[in-house]
């Protein structure tokens, strides 16, 4: 499965990943309009956490044994067995926040206007996710792991 990894040694917390993610999920493709004209403003699916000199660009890691999928009250969250992508079906999401409560990285975001959760989709229509493409320091890298080992084995090993 493809994944974004963080090299925190060279992340200086510029937040361009947040900026480009927001733009990617905005209606307009114009940065200024996305920030100044759209109301409510689109939500970035990535977040930079900082403390002292540490800054971390955090997004959904599409866990094999995804706690959000297991906890989802409506079945809106699911993990594609082929691509490994954890996706939310916005039609069925009620924005309850149970996913946010169980995510080890705390990455599900609540779109309060739409009453839905939103999450990283690894920019499915892009060759590489925009956060990675626009990271000036190459602190974000997009890599492909060998196909997941049998999820059954993973599930059992993790439990």
């Amino acid at each position: 499965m493809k994944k974004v990894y963080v090299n925190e040694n060279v992340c200086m917390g510029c937040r361009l990943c947040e900026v480009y993610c927001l733009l990617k999920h905005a209606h307009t493709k114009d940065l200024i309009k996305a920030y100044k004209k759209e109301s409510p403003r689109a939500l970035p699916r990535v977040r930079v956490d900082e403390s002292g000199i540490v800054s971390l660009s955090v997004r959904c890691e599409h866990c094999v044994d995804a706690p959000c999928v297991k906890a989802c009250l409506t079945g809106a969250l699911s993990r594609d067995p082929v691509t490994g992508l954890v996706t939310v079906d916005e039609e069925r999401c009620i924005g309850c926040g149970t996913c946010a409560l169980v995510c080890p990285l705390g990455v599900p975001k609540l779109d309060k206007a739409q009453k839905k959760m939103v999450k990283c989709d690894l920019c499915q229509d892009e060759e590489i996710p925009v956060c990675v493409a626009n990271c000036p320091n190459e602190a974000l890298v997009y890599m492909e792991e060998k196909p997941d080992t049998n999820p059954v084995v993973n599930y059992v090993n993790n439990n």
Partner: protein
Amino acid sequence: MSTTTNTKYLIIGNSAGGIGAAEAIREVDGVGKITIISDEPYPAYSRPLISEYLAQPCPLEKMLYRKPDFYKANGIQSVPGEKAVAINPAEHTVKLESGGFIKWRKLLLATGGTPIVPTMEGIDLKGVFTFNRLDDAKAIDTFLNEYRSNVKAVVIGGGLIGVSVTEALVKWGVEVTIVEMKDYVLNTILDEEAAALEADALEQASVGIITGRTVAKINSQTAGEVGSVTLDDGRTLPADMVIIAIGVKPRLDLVAGTKIKTNRGIVVDRTMAASLPDIYVCGDAAEAYDFVMGENRPTPVWPNAYEGGCAAGLNMAGKKTEYTGGTSMNALKYFGLNIVSAGLVNPPDDGYKTIVNRHNGTYRKVILKKGKLAGFAFAGDIEKSGIIYNLMKDGVNVDSFKQQLVADDFGLASLPESAWRSKLAKPSASAVPITTAEPKEEAVIGD
């Protein structure tokens, strides 16, 4: 002449726990016959959605917990509307209401809970409802459609079910009064201060809240129909309908008369096995492991039912697996206010330390014991609460950064390096970088 059918796995109950078990069995055993029976005449639907349904009825397809082809795709024999009436553990059979028997090799009781309905005068009147199943929501919907306007409702019990039905009724324009026996609403899942934020949201929606009182009897003006309720202090409230939302108790009727051990719920070990061989239990019917309390107790919430079901299913299919445990945990979003809580909501004695941060309608509280998290509640801003939940579940000693847990800028970087490193994925040695063919352009803001 009664018929007997055979199945390798029989699951009684077609909700979160039953589906979790079926999915887990299929991860291990791709062919063994799975049969799911349920007294509800529907494919598995999301039970928490019944308040959404009542607010705005929608086709069942929009409430399905799994895709419509779930049973077929997984080779599961689903028999909705078939009620189990008795278990014979020695013979490995279950008797059905329709007269037949099912012989099983492994049995899962995912029978859920049943609403607590007090005995009181007027409880059988037309206009008295419970609110646990889709059919309850349908009955209330039918009642409201038949009824005159200006409907007044009394909701007995200010817990999660009471508040959720209230939200749906308010959307109908019903004038609702919640009568809560304890000092404040949502008292089993929130501390008083977080609950007060929800009470404010309720009152802004013109919902009446009476605490410290209960309904003594339901009165009728028109024969056979609800007209008012009388409280235990003698006050009378006009009411056209009454919703009983006191709580849910584990369903034990099927195990009554067997030697399966019960306490408040059906007793299970860490593999979700009951006290007799080849019988497993999960969800609201079970008394499973609570990782905060360090003991078994009912924690009747949806995610625990699913997780417990997964563990049960793996064990039923022969993969010995320990249930990692659940705890009381809830995410609420009623009347536009997001609240989450997990574990303890109020410290039971002075061996606990509480840290609170409150301002501008956001509220963050953590409860610690001996440096480890024992519970928390977040209101207003619940994002990143999952980091706290997992620190609690993993039993991480948070003493050195406990003040950070409630800080406005709390995040992964607030944790010690070893803790955040263990949470972020690292590429394996064989991972291949993916880059675009074209040289990367300089990023310019305002491009």
